[in-house]
């Protein structure tokens, strides 16, 4: 399986060392991140959870090369982020699907190929649209699609050029539970098949536990604690896994961490 073949060296996938991000405001400045460390192996699936204001979206943006850190450094697969970005090896999907309203759905997916300067293989775009379950909607304009459908097109676009690293910021936020679960299963299947190093920012603890190898909990300032919870559940994870006691224990543990009530309750439960 892809997970086993992945480089197990921590930090070979996503690495952040002493990362800080300071934003200037009118009155002064705010540190969205300070002294943050993160290490994820290549080909792994990492979920990022935390309360609002903890900086998880900022961290994702730093890994996408959209912002530069004001302190510390980041690396993807051992290389500087900007180099990886310029080689079109990053796939992103944000909360805002950000489809171009003047392009049809398939043209929006094709944008990824155009930016990468590559020809889409015959039928590649159609396959991607079928992958996210929107067969028949290729020629639809974004204004004719629901929010969830737009988000699925955005996901197809993110996967189009088979990126080495996948950065997702709450891409399933606007979807109903059924579609969300369906897409989670799809994402897992794709990830097991192609093994991009994946970072998923999510508000849903269940989604994080279902998809990820490890869940990183960020707490907002002034605490700024980074807690890593391993998710040793076996793969592939089917819907039945959602009912297992281990799954529930992990979810409960993470929920407690998020509420910061219990703090240290001992080591996380093992499978």
């Amino acid at each position: 399986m892809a997970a086993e073949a992945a480089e197990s060296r921590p930090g070979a996938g996503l690495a952040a060392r002493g990362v800080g991000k300071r934003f200037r405001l009118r009155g002064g400045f705010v540190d969205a991140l300070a002294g943050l460390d993160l290490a994820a192996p290549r080909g792994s699936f990492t979920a990022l959870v935390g309360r609002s204001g903890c900086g998880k979206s900022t961290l994702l943006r730093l890994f996408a090369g959209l912002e530069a850190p004001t302190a510390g450094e980041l690396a993807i697969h051992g290389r500087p982020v900007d180099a990886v970005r310029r080689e079109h090896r990053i796939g992103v999907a944000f909360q805002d699907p950000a489809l171009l309203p003047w392009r049809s759905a398939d043209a929006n997916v094709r944008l990824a190929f155009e930016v990468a300067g590559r020809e889409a293989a015959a039928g590649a775009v159609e396959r991607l649209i079928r992958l996210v379950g929107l067969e028949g909607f290729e020629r639809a304009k974004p204004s004719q699609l629901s929010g969830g459908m737009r988000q699925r097109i955005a996901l197809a676009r993110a996967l189009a050029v088979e990126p080495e690293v996948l950065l997702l910021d709450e891409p399933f936020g606007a979807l109903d539970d059924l579609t969300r679960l369906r897409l989670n299963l799809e994402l897992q299947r794709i990830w097991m098949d192609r093994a991009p190093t994946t970072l998923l920012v999510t508000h849903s603890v269940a989604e994080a536990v279902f998809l990820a190898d490890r869940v990183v909990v960020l707490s907002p300032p002034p605490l700024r604690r980074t807690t890593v919870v391993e998710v040793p559940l076996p793969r592939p994870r089917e819907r039945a896994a959602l009912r297992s006691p281990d799954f529930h224990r992990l979810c409960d543990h993470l929920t407690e961490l998020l509420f910061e009530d219990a703090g240290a309750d001992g080591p996380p439960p093992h499978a």
Partner: protein
Amino acid sequence: MPEAPARWPAARSWLPLAGGLVALLALWWLAAGLLRAQRVVPTPLAVLGQLIADRASYVANGATTLREAAVGFLVGNAAAVLLGALFVQFPLAERILLRVAVAAYCIPLVTLGPILVVVLPGDGPKVALAALAVFFTTLLGTLQGLRSANPAALDVVRALGGGEARAFLQVRVPSALPSLGAALRIAAPAALLGAVIGEYFGASQGLGVALVQAQSSFEVARTWGLAAVLALLAGLLYALAAALTRVLVPWAGRDDVAVAWAEPPARAASGWGRLGRTAAFPALSLAVGIGGWYLLLRAFRLSDYFAKTPLDVWHYLVSDPAAAANRAELAAALRITCLDAGLGYGFGTLGAVLAALAMAAWPPLERAFLPGALAVRSVPMVALAPLVALVFGRGLVGVTVIVSAVVFFPTLVYVLAGLRDAPRAAGEVVAAGGGSRLMVIRKVRAWYSLPSLFTSARNAVPAALGGAILAEWLSTGRGAGNLLVVAYSESQFDTLWSGSVVLIGLSLACYGALGALERAVAARLGTGATR
């Protein structure tokens, strides 16, 4: 929510327009009857008769003027779009050069016209004035449009490894088309007006020339006929621009469009103090302006009898023994002009906003009366002024009416576009909650249209000052407009240039104040964090 015109059966879409025209004609006939003694308002029938009699000359003159307007339209818009693109990609250039562009836009016609005639051969002055008429509004529209691109879409392109050029061409440019369309709708009739005014400064053929001749010979029916033809042409050009926009930009107003402000977001102070940064860029703009001034004087070898240098202006205003008296004279005149412009701007904007709200609430109104507003705007003030003076007098009211008319139409177009571009979802929330169409406007669309209001204000404030100057020249005989015209006719070029410089400075100050106000409102409302 506005229904797309295409969904209306053809008859219903023509009815409001016909209704508006009929109303206009009725008003005209009434005025002709009421003012019969003064003989300034001929009946529509008389005008029509004269038109038919003159039809041959209309074709020749019309072709000339349209050609000049077309070339000016192309040149002015091309320059504006290119400069706008430059400013968006290089905000530093904008901070220095935008002020210079505003200053150029604010040069009083009285000063500019004669220079253009001396400097440019043949059709040059008319094309230049037509280009200048469109340049500024298209520049602002381009800036607003390019900055309205969805920041998330730009991020996606960048994260996918796309460069600046790709992000610009594939995201910013298509996003800019709705705003550019609104600007071009205003520019089309404005170019025509610019060409006509250019002909006033000296030409052998054209509708403007015919208008001057008809007016000076007191041929009232012919004057009105020419004005009507100009209005009709302006309307056709506007319709053409509007149709073009609809074809190119069918997606406007339906999706979630990030509202953006024409100014780049204010960067918080860092490094050296805020005061240093605030003062540095205006100083740089001033340097560029003065440098350009000297350069143009040198390049075109303008005689120093009538073309003054910055140093001459400094002498006149500061170092000359009579400087204090000069300044006092200018100040007194400017006080009057500010009042004239301010009142006209206030009423014109208020009227435009109310009209836009009404038209947004009830689309048939737009189809009925927008052409009328366009007509009023497109007739040169020189033709309108006598009528206004007759009806409203040569005092404050008359000037206010003229300036309001100048401000009304562009503001109306901008605010309408702004109201239309509000994201549909936001309005639907209110509508689904049982809100009436008016409530949707009040609570949602009006706020989303605020950026458009500010963009139109930046355009309208210099226009109001220019309109006030013109009205004072033609009608009231007071204020800075009168001062400048008298200076020109008495060859007192020091006064002419110094007065123009102070006027430009005033316009720039207003423009800067508007910018500060816009930033404050943007920060307060939080609509649209642009990148």
